[in-house]
């Protein structure tokens, strides 16, 4: 298990990419040297007791001493984060959770990202070498599309304003990608999307890993808040410590 640390990190940049999505880069040399694709950090967005808890964000990329997050403004914490300026300091706890397994034997990596679910993939893609990569990404509409750091993208939008009309799962199924035992799928997005993907992968016997989200307090396995049902037994698994990346057949959504 990796040792968690808190790094007080100076903001390098915090840029608005779309109406609601931002790209944040901070100086965190220690976390940058340790963190793996699919892991996450827990960020304190204020110095006060409000909001109280840290906010979890996937590692989006690492550039030397910088760690990069891609986040969507959805509530009070991310609203505060979006106001942060270059030079300000953020307290960052990490690295947390277990990342993607990308050392196993596959030839094609299929990336599936729904909305802000694209966040963990730039760092994963950077770390997958000598393999074919295809990215299927879906957003609500054309203005919300973010393909930062992705390769070989195919697009879907809910309203059809760009690419296929439908979800990234519809898109993935509609393309006649060659799926076999040498294909590995990496997916992240809203639970209903992952649920339908998990069913599809079970049917077709495909190798797939999904990255989950859940409300959580600590992020390191103590509070027991972020449970997800295990497929193998009646027990719960913790998204923060057993995940956030799970094999598709480990969990029940």
């Amino acid at each position, binding site marked *: 298990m990796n040792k968690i640390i808190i790094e007080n990190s100076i903001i390098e940049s915090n840029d608005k990419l779309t109406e609601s999505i931002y790209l944040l880069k901070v100086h965190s040399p220690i976390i940058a040297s340790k963190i793996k694709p699919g892991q996450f950090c827990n960020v304190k967005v204020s110095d006060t007791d409000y909001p109280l808890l840290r906010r979890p964000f996937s590692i989006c990329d690492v550039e030397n001493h910088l760690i990069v997050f891609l986040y969507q403004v959805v509530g009070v914490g991310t609203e505060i984060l979006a106001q942060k300026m270059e030079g300000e300091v953020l307290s960052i706890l990490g690295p947390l959770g277990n990342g993607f397994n990308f050392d196993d034997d596959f030839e094609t990596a299929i990336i599936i990202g729904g909305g802000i679910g694209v966040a963990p993939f730039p760092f994963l893609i950077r770390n997958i070498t000598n393999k074919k990569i295809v990215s299927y990404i879906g957003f609500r509409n054309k203005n919300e599309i973010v393909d930062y750091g992705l390769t070989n993208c195919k697009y879907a939008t809910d309203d059809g304003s760009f690419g296929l009309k439908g979800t990234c799962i519809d898109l993935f199924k509609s393309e006649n990608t060659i799926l076999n035992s040498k294909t590995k799928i990496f997916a992240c997005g809203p639970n209903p999307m992952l649920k339908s993907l998990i069913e599809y992968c079970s049917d077709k016997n495909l190798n797939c890993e999904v990255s989950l989200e859940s409300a959580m307090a600590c992020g390191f396995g*103590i509070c027991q808040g*972020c449970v997800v049902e295990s497929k193998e037994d009646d027990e719960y698994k913790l998204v923060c410590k057993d995940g956030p990346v799970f094999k598709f057949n480990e969990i029940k959504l």
Partner: protein
Amino acid sequence: MEIDLSVNIGKLKLCNPIVLASGTVGYGEEVANFLDLSKIGAIITKSISLKPRRGNSPQRIVETSSGMLNAIGLANVGLDEFVKTKIPILEKLNSNVICNIAASSIEEYVECTKALNEFEIIKAFEINVSCPNVKEGGLIFGNDLTAVGKITSEIRVATNKTIIIKLSPNNSNIAEFAKVVKQEGGDAVSAINTLIGTAFDIYTKKPILKNITGGLSGPAIKPVALAKVLEISRSVDIPIIGLGGIMNWKDVVEFMIVGASAVQIGTVNFINPFAAYEIIDGLIKYCKNNSIINISQLTGTYQI
């Protein structure tokens, strides 16, 4: 000037007054990887029940104004597994271990205490009569003076170790409960457990927690906790471990002034897992600046 941070709770001596609260340090092993537990007064393990508990269905956690609601539902590995796999790990941690027990009957409290009593590593028992998140047991006892008295006296028979009864703030006469604990041979009380609260989604009109209600913790509850500690300390002569919303050393000093001999920190561990260290450093500075040689001198020094 050498500052003595040590305090006594019954027969239990702590190297400093900072105790990590039940439910916020797991069974110790989860935090031992990044904390040197020998530097911290004591740790209290997650509530153990006779049988394993899976806990409540998610969503289990929601943040509220300067606080959080949890409805974990006492998820724990159960007595047998605790003895088999957790105690051997606790034995290696070089920590003062207080074992927290939750139960749904008086017999169950006694059975757990008896089974755990032989383990040297367990220095004291904290009896949770106040968990708001389970249907049976828990708070039903916490609101019943006779039951709390009976639990205390029967556990007293089962162990010579320090007994701490963890009291609920969800009643109007906490001092009466502390009185009963003292009468029946309890060594100390801890106050407070979480306050019952809830939160609703205004669009779906559904409760955010699957359990509907949860236990409120964090800075939002500190004023309530302080008032409860003060209430006990003004009417009962029993050591109090104060807790509820402590975020920093100043909060600790405040709890000690109103009557706490030691304190527990809970929710803050989620935000800053190194908070205990920072608090201990802060207490040393405070003592130095205020010519306090033994921090225990601070307890109950309120000027009212």
